[in-house]
């Protein structure tokens, strides 16, 4: 029997002083090699779910089980939606700093930094201050830092938001390469065509609940939809989800 890499059972989360749950009895399993897209409207609970899975915050109730050797910190990679580095440092200085926090040796940091910067097209600007980078270059550096320690599970919160088509393409190709090499990828995005192209499975969240979880072709077939966008609109409706 195939054992899930991460098993999520009845996970709920209510923030302090909040009236409603941000996540409500969420249950599903993630298997090794999955490319899981966590999709849904604004405020659906995507970032909360990712934050719980990668250990940034604790659930109010429920259980998350990890079936992997090594500590969570060493097997997880996290690429947050915000740029998680220091603008006033160079790319190499950023990678050196985060590499040491990941417990990598100097040699490992040097080798992996050079390799990642080359793969992500940042070698020529490695010694320039990050504040001089374009949005796309910053997104690629954000990704490089998140995978510097070769994580086996990579969490990405909207990794391609606000970048040009070239950088988006480079990031998605790079994520596919990582996945082929064995990294399990869990990713949130509002770019549904990108998710449809990249993900193998989709979890659709709405009002803190999982309203659909399956492979993309199965979801489309079940809801008689041509695209993932149609599936989500059918499930979550076309009304605005503005909330304050």
């Amino acid at each position: 029997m195939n054992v899930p890499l991460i098993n999520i059972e009845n996970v709920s989360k209510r923030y302090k002083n909040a009236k409603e749950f941000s996540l409500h009895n969420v249950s599903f399993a993630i298997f090794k090699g999955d490319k899981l897209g966590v999709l849904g409207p604004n405020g659906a609970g995507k970032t909360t779910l990712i934050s719980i899975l990668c250990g940034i915050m604790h659930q109010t109730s429920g259980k998350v089980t990890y079936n992997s050797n090594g500590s969570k910190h060493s097997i997880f990679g996290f690429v947050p939606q915000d740029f998680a580095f220091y603008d006033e440092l160079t790319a190499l200085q950023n990678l050196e700093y985060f590499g040491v926090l990941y417990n990598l040796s100097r040699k490992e940091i040097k080798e992996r930094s050079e390799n990642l910067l080359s793969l992500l097209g940042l070698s020529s600007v490695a010694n320039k201050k990050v504040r001089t980078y374009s949005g796309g270059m910053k997104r690629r550096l954000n990704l490089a830092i998140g995978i510097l320690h070769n994580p086996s599970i990579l969490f990405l919160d909207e990794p391609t938001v606000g970048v040009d088509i070239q950088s988006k393409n480079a990031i998605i190709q790079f994520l596919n390469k990582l996945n082929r090499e064995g990294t399990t990828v869990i990713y949130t995005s509002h770019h549904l065509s990108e998710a449809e192209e990249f993900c193998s499975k989709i979890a659709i969240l709405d009002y803190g609940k999982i309203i659909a979880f399956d492979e993309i072709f199965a979801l489309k077939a079940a809801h008689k939809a041509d695209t993932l966008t149609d599936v989500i609109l059918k499930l979550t409706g076309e009304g605005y989800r503005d909330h304050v």
Partner: protein
Amino acid sequence: MYKLLISLKKEALLFLNDKVGLVLMFGMPILLVFIITIIQDSVYQIVDNNKISLLVANHDKGDLGGKLVAQLDSSGMFKILEKNTLEPNAIKNSISHKEALTAIYISSDFSEKLQNKSQQLSNIILTDFGLSDSNTEKSTQIEALVIQFFHDPVLQENYCYSIISVLHAHLSVLESTKMIDNIYKEIGATSTSPQLKETIQKNQIKIERIVATSGSQNKIPSSTQHNVPAWTIFAMFFMVVSLGTNIVKERTSGSFLRIKTMPASFSIVLISKQIIYTIIAFLQVFVIFSIGLYVLPLINLPPLVFPDNIIGTIAIIFACSFAAVSYALMIGTLASTESQSNGFGAVSIIIFAALGGVWVPTFIMPHYLQVISLFSPLHWCIEGFYVLFLKHGNWNDLVKPIYILFAFSLLCQAIAFFKIKFEK
């Protein structure tokens, strides 16, 4: 350990790249030390090292006006500029053109009125002692004698009162001398006792000025001795703008979240920030004190006199820098945005500085403000530096400010710790 070292390196690089922070923490206080010390020193010199410039318009037809001017000149306190033809409006004009800081106008009937006043007073005395003949009039109405005193509007009130007091003292001598002359004359003595006149004219009671310090030194405090430590403390606490913003930026950016997923604690980040900024605070002290020691004397300002108690000085510098870093840490963790941290941080330090005695000493404040000033950490920093730089105190005198500063620091650290720990 390596994580701490790399964090220290990162913080040092971030600080060196923070041009605004560098200017605020080094440029601004150095400029303030120069400006405020020069201003205070020039005011200080008006009544201390330099003579007060006094323009005299003596219109007196008698000899007493001239005697008064001679006495003021011989006092050594004034630099007399005689322009006896000037009328009050012209005197005002001269002062507004900075010819002198102060002026007196002696009217044409000065001698006559002073003579009359002395005569009336001596008559009263003689009558009371029964030495007057029956024809002597005992008047109870003594005619007012007025000398007009003009001063530059920038001259502080206390200096004006000091000068007026000096004028009164010299007028009293003239009046007393004249009165004794009258009494001697009335009782038929041929001439006044020279010994009595000399005793009256030369004030034999010396007032010795002693600075109340614990040590044996009796140096008069200079503007440098106050301003250099005071503005150094201000500079240390103004790090709230740089460090507070740095912490808010880190907390609100993705790096805070990223570090939470790493085998590292955010406390390493905060500890490294505190170490770097404590080192920076010591650098501020080194730079500003060096300016006090070596640069200020080059522009004719008094040099900073460093206290003998070096270990005590290091202890109070450490207590102040720890308090400043802890306060910045607390503001950085409590603020939600960089604007909040900058705005509240900077304004709070200015208020703390005003209350704490950076600009004016707390002892001249109203009582209720003196009580409020006890809640300013800058007050205790200044107290600590005063113990060493002005009072030449010992360790016992330092204990209280150091304890209070450490208590303040621990409170700030505790608030910051719990805010970070329970942050959503």
